[in-house]
């Protein structure tokens, strides 16, 4: 089927969160790759200390949009972003903002586990070191061990903490990347299909972890798995061809979506 998008116009079913409960507020965000209009006028609120899932078919722009929130798109020269992304009511695209500090506040976990070719300890200590979060070795140890603990990895690696991070299994590597991200005390964690390279058992562990982490962090997860979105998220946003089609409570999206496209997608009729 070839859906007609003229009728999307305004995103439907995307009630803005009540004042104060939104951590991130995006307003009319557009992203261009050279001439390609990849994200079209997306406005959405992301709730504090909850998990928001971005779903949609491949190439719909959900990863691109995710990378707007920590300005990772800046590293792509052809990419241009317009509109506002406010975190705690400060537009991160204003000129005075320090991108480096922003990325410390907004951590990111990638599709493929990408530990550095360093020891497990050094992988986690990397962020705290460059941001000067620890005054001495004891403090650094403290940060590293707590982060590994929070990422549910400490038990498995404490005997080989000085061995290369690349020697871990895929799921462990991904949790190491999560530990690395939370070691710099972020407020938001962006996850770009964090389980797509993992087996079901490792996936279950990561999902469990996400559920725990949401008490302290605002989490946005991009996923291709509808079940995963339903399991871990409180709110779900459905993207299609650069548009945000619909955004609402996860339960509502998966039971009674407002838009026909959403319904078709979640029932597997296309995408």
């Amino acid at each position, binding site marked *: 089927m070839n859906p007609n998008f003229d009728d999307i116009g305004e995103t439907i079913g995307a009630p803005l969160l009540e004042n104060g409960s939104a951590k991130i507020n995006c307003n009319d965000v557009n992203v261009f790759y050279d001439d390609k209009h990849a994200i079209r006028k997306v406005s959405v609120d992301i709730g504090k200390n909850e998990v928001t899932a971005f779903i949609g078919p491949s190439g719909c722009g959900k990863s691109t949009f995710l990378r707007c929130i920590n300005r*990772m798109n800046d*590293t792509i020269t052809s990419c241009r972003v317009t509109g506002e992304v406010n975190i705690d009511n400060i537009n991160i695209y204003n000129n005075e903002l320090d991108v480096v500090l922003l*990325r410390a506040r907004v951590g990111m976990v*990638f599709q493929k586990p*990408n530990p550095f070719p360093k020891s497990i300890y050094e992988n986690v200590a990397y*962020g705290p070191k*460059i941001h000067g979060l620890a005054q001495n070795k004891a403090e650094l140890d403290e940060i590293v061990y707590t982060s590994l603990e929070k990422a549910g990895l400490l038990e498995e690696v404490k005997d080989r903490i000085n061995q290369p991070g690349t020697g871990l299994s895929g799921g462990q590597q991904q949790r190491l990347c999560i530990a690395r991200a939370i070691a710099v005390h972020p407020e938001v964690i962006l996850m770009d299909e964090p389980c797509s390279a993992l087996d079901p058992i490792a996936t279950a562990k990561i999902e469990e972890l996400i559920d725990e982490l949401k008490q302290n962090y605002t989490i946005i997860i991009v996923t291709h798995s509808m079940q995963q979105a339903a399991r871990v998220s409180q709110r779900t946003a459905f993207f299609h061809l650069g548009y945000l089609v619909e955004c609402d409570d996860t339960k509502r999206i998966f039971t009674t979506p407002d838009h026909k496209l959403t319904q078709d997608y979640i029932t597997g009729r296309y995408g």
Partner: protein
Amino acid sequence: MQTFILTFVILFLTLIGFILGKRRSVKISNGGVNKLHSLPGYYGLYVAMWCSIPAVIFLALWLSFENSIITTLIVSDLPDEMKDLPPDRMSLIVNDIKNLAEGNIVSKEPDEALKKAALHYSRLKEVAYASLFTLIMIISTVFGIFTYRKIQSNFRARNKVEKIMEIILIASSTVAIFTTIGIVLSVLFESIRFFRQIPVFEFLLGLKWSPQMAIRPDQVGASGSFGIIPLVTGTMLISFIAMVVAVPIGLMSAIYMSEYASYRTRAIVKPLLEILAGIPTVVYGFFAALTVAPFIRDTGALVGLDVSSESALAAGLVMGVMIIPFVSSLSDDVINAVPQSMRDGSYAIGATQSETIIRVLLQAALPGIVGSVLLAVSRAIGETMIVVMAAGLTANLTGNPFEAVTTFTVQIVTLLIGDQEFDSPKTLAAFALGLILFIMTLCLNIVALYVVRKYREQYE
């Protein structure tokens, strides 16, 4: 000329083989070409390969043995008093015979025996050529006919051709290997002759290098001492200076090109940098000798340093410039090969670009960079022209870069230039030096390749 004609004959027979083979396969198929196992061209190719390859191999073998066999034959026909001459005088006589037969200038007025031998030689040549021609024709045709008759509709010509292709490719690659072995052996045998006269330990551990030998007993001259330690230190000193120049500059330009430069800048800068590698080393040599060395000497004089006009520093600096493209090009490749996800991971934690480069990229690319540096070192050690022109000939045992030093390559060149007698240790020393040099660079290359390979495994 004769070889040229023979090659042409083989090519002609090959072409005929191809056409006939192809035609026969089409004929056998009776119009239904798709009933054949392979396309008709493969049958043609199969016949053509059998027409040409055995004949070419035979031709090559014949040509490599023809000369020595004919020489042996004419020598055995020479009068007895000429037969017993020492080998070097004998080869002069053989040369005279050949020159006489071909109508070239002869070293002395030919006598009767020589004329007879020359006649004999040209007769032998003619016979050899005629028999070669016939044999080639026979071999080519016999193999051609034999394979031609094998063509049937279920004959797997395609697979056979594949097999022959594989053999040809293997043969080509072994040529390089055998050449290397040949070079090593020739250097090795001459070195063994050298080590019969000069003990190995004296050569390897001696502190004095002075290869001048008295040629006649009454001549004034050193008895010659062959200790390579001054050469080792000289080579090391110059290579070290070169690496001090090349590694930081090469590495930093590699980082600039792979991380900071825009696509367009990179497309311009990289070829420009590689032009450095294209400058002939002899040009670098006179740049070092005529521009850099005097400049360093004058600057040294200004601050009160005593700098000789052929200094290790000048040669090392220019050699370093020459090596920059090696380091930068190879390092650029390995830095580029670090997966983008490493960079993303580092940026996403809030690292700046230089933090990412120093703490993640260089660490990840380190084995590759080490490999490229080692390759550059072996290149520096083997470099000849710059040091010949700028480093000097005095074998000083010194670590002072302002003094003249000499290297392996310089000594090899000076030992072999001009008239030489190949039974004196002075000349043979060049081969021993070459052997040591070869072993040094070989070890470096092996280590470098090992390191680079290990690095590749990490990301594949």
